[in-house]
């Protein structure tokens, strides 16, 4: 593995509500390398989503620095963070977050319209095996299909990083594996750095590295000697 593309250093996040302070992250360090598939494991409230949101430019750290390639994201104003998300990051969420009034094709086209060097929406959809369902609205698709549309939407802009927050959280094992296969294929074919948050420990084996979160910090980092294929994941 080469240079780290993402680098979080001593990142903390505090939520203040009146007198009460809640530490979501306590001085976390994390590097992600180009082409890497990383899995972030941990119970609810352990800080993994907070870190992912900060790295994706959706939220700001209370302390510490976050770098992406040669850009220092820490002090970016809202407009530059928006630009950063638009140009470099693909997101996949647990509840898909598709636009219900747009068809599968349109949901992908939504992003390709504002991207610099996108792939055609048809191509992105066929990468996730949905080339036959392009004209369907989200409400006409199954959960797994909706999540694959979300992945197609995330990769259509050819992002350098794909940040996935519980992408299989709302799916059964069979459809969950289809989604993981799509992510795995993107990672292998395009070399897209991919970070996947999950509760599901079984998924850890598809990653290059696995980070375990507890109480706002990383307690363990494990390097997989051998990655397994998604279809071999024990759910």
């Amino acid at each position, binding site marked *: 593995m080469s240079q780290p593309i993402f680098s979080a250093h001593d990142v903390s996040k505090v939520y203040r509500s009146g007198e009460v302070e809640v530490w979501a992250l306590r001085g976390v360090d994390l590097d992600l390398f180009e082409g890497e598939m990383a899995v972030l494991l941990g119970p609810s409230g352990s800080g993994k989503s907070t870190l992912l949101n900060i790295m994706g430019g959706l*939220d700001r750290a209370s302390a510490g620095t976050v770098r992406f390639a040669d850009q220092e994201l820490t002090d970016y104003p*809202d407009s530059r963070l928006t630009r950063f998300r638009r*140009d470099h*990051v693909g997101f996949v969420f*647990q509840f898909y977050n598709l*636009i219900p009034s747009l068809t599968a094709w*349109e949901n992908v086209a939504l992003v390709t*319209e504002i991207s610099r060097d996108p792939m055609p929406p048809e191509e992105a959809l066929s990468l996730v095996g949905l080339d036959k369902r392009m004209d369907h609205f*989200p409400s006409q698709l199954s959960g797994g299909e909706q999540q694959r549309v979300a992945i197609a939407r995330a990769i259509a802009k050819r992002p350098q990083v794909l940040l996935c927050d519980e992408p299989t959280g709302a799916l059964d094992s069979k459809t969950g594996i289809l989604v993981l296969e799509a992510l795995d294929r993107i990672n292998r074919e395009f070399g897209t750095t991919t970070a996947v948050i999950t509760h599901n420990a079984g998924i850890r084996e598809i990653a290059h590295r696995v980070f375990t979160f507890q109480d706002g910090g990383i307690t363990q980092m494990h390097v997989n000697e051998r990655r397994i294929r998604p279809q071999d994941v024990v759910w």
Partner: protein
Amino acid sequence: MVIAMLDRKLIRDLLRMWLQVLAIAMVMACGVATIIIAVGALRTLEDTRDAFYDRYRFGTVFASLVRAPLHLREQLARIPGINGVETRIARAVLLDVPGMREPATGLAVSIPDIGELSVNSLYIRAGRLPDPDRVGEVAVNEQFAKAHRMVPGSTFEGVINGSKRLLTVTGIVLSPEYVYTLGPGDLVPDQRRFGVMFMPRRQLAGMFDMTGAFNDLTLRTQRGADLAAVISAVDTILAPYGGTGARDRDDQISHAFLDSELSQLRGMVTIVPPIFLFVAAFLVNMILSRLITLEREQVGLLKALGFSALAVAWHYAKLVIVVALLGTAIGGAVGAWVAPMLAQVYGEFYYFPFLVLRPAPDLYLTAATVTSLAALAGAGKALWNVLSLPAAVAMQPPAPTRYRKLFHRPADAHRFFSQLTTMALRGMIRHPVRSLLTTFSTAISLSLIVTALFTFDSIEAMIDIIYFRTERQDATLAFGQEQSPAVLQSVGRLPGVLRAEPMRSVPVVLRNEHVERRLTVSAWTEGADLSQILATDLTPVQPAPTGLMISDRVASILGLSIGDLAEVELLEKEGRIEWVPVTGVFQSYIGMSVFMSDEALTRLVGDGPRVTGARLAVDAAQVDDLYDVLKSTPAIAAISLMTVSRERFREQVAQNVTMMTWIYSGLAIIITFGVIYNTARIQLSERARELASLRVLGFTRGEVYRVLLVELAVVALAAQPVGWGLGYLFCWAVVEGFDTDLFRIPFVIEQSTFGIGSGLVLAVVVVTGLVIRRRVARLDLISVLKTRE
């Protein structure tokens, strides 16, 4: 005090949605305020008028004649159904009032030497009635006195039957007959230039050589008397004495104008509040439906916890009732503040001696009830959903919304619209009823402004037609008696007179089968330039050498058209009846006019050429000299000055229209803001999740904001043609409503009126859009990703 938990929720919901709640309450408040103000003013005016008419014995039948002996009084009193007869002397005189350059016109009316008036009694505001034994004492109407700051003891001069006399004001009075005073030839009251003077019969009879005679009659009939029979009996008795036909109150100027004002108010009461209640009901429907959609799970939970369906529905109904009560309170407060001011304005405009203001708790109660009912009607569907939703189903997420494609192939849509625009348009198509009602409500706002501004266009057109195209003279003189045409040469020699044209008018009854109208036939002289007759397409026309040229109003009322024979009863010629063909129809906005060529009229009347007045073109530089001469010219009974009257007309109309425009624009702004703001807020609420998703995907705030703007823009733009159309209809209704025998208004709407209306509505939409923009900036990107739709 212990507040039930559900009520705490209610209070917090209200506080959270305060601006939406306020926007709806304001729309309701407009409805309530219009009910209280307009109904309140209407009641005050009606009650005041009725009380004044009743206590001061306002006449029910009016007639004028040339001269009749006083002993006819007994004969008149014997007509069945009569309970009061006043045989009076009434004559127009020229007045010279200190401090006023131009001559004024006065109507001298006799009052009994002894005893009270049995009809049209006078209310004495100040001083006393004139003494029958003293020369030159008069009581004047309050309007005229106020305009000239007259008090008992003030003096002015009158040209009475040829000689100039000094008149002393002894009293300031109000008469039910002159609540609204209109001088001869005027379109709006000019209290400076027209006064009514009451003088003892003995004095007036001496001045006009009318001892033992009368030339004016008012009668008071018993309740339920057959007016038609009374009028016919009066006409029979007065016919030998030059009676020009008795009239009922409908043709009495003061009453007719007061009545048309009341009809307008009544129209406002029936049209405006329902508009606001409709819009308010729609807004309540919109926000409550959304609230209940958002709180679907809570509804299920409350039911699961053991609250009855009714209790849960009542909780939401209370929210609606609170909004309605808030609207009623605001509207009621505004109403309570404005209604007495409006009554005061009416009181001053119409000159009542008193105002009957009665407390109107029932109005407030009615307004509150009607508003609450309208709000609950709007809430009906949403409340029914709460009632009927089973707890278990409510706690599940609702079925996903179904959208439809704009084009068969998505790639086609892609060619026309960006995905963001597609989102916005599909959202609108998904809620067609809401989109239509939003558009319609916005259109109503626009139409209100158009209706307010249109009056201005219409009146300007009327001024142009009347003062610049038909009545182009600077002054009109009315002679006391018919004169030979030779008098025009003398008139032409008056200082500053550039041109003098003869006028002759002959009172007749025009009849077609069973329909008849009392009116005057005017002579039209070949080559006349100061007065023109306009065809229905507004080009100048001339009457044919024979036959009648009637105005469109006369034509439609009497059902006459060109070629028909009309029955003409010559009132001053012992009711001789002639049949005359209709040879032309022309356009007229005032009165019921009929023209004939002067030769034809002379032939019809059969007593040789005569003139009853003159139209003058005057050199503005010498107008003062002319006024001086006129003030002491005995033959002239009245003068109307077109320039003064035009300015006065403009002034008064401008005042009314400006006030109307402000009020209607204010109402329109409140409706537009209420509708657009609530629409935008609900869109924002429904779309918070997808808009936040867009932000996450890398769309800027501006781009996301545009999704909301597209819908607002489509609504605002679609509302324009609809609003113009509605405005056009409302204006047409106003024109129809004004259509009386006394006057009509032309149906003219300038393009600028539509433009100003549109500009104002669009400006409110833009401002609302800016208010919403702040909320787009505050979208929470993270929390929205953590929740299921």
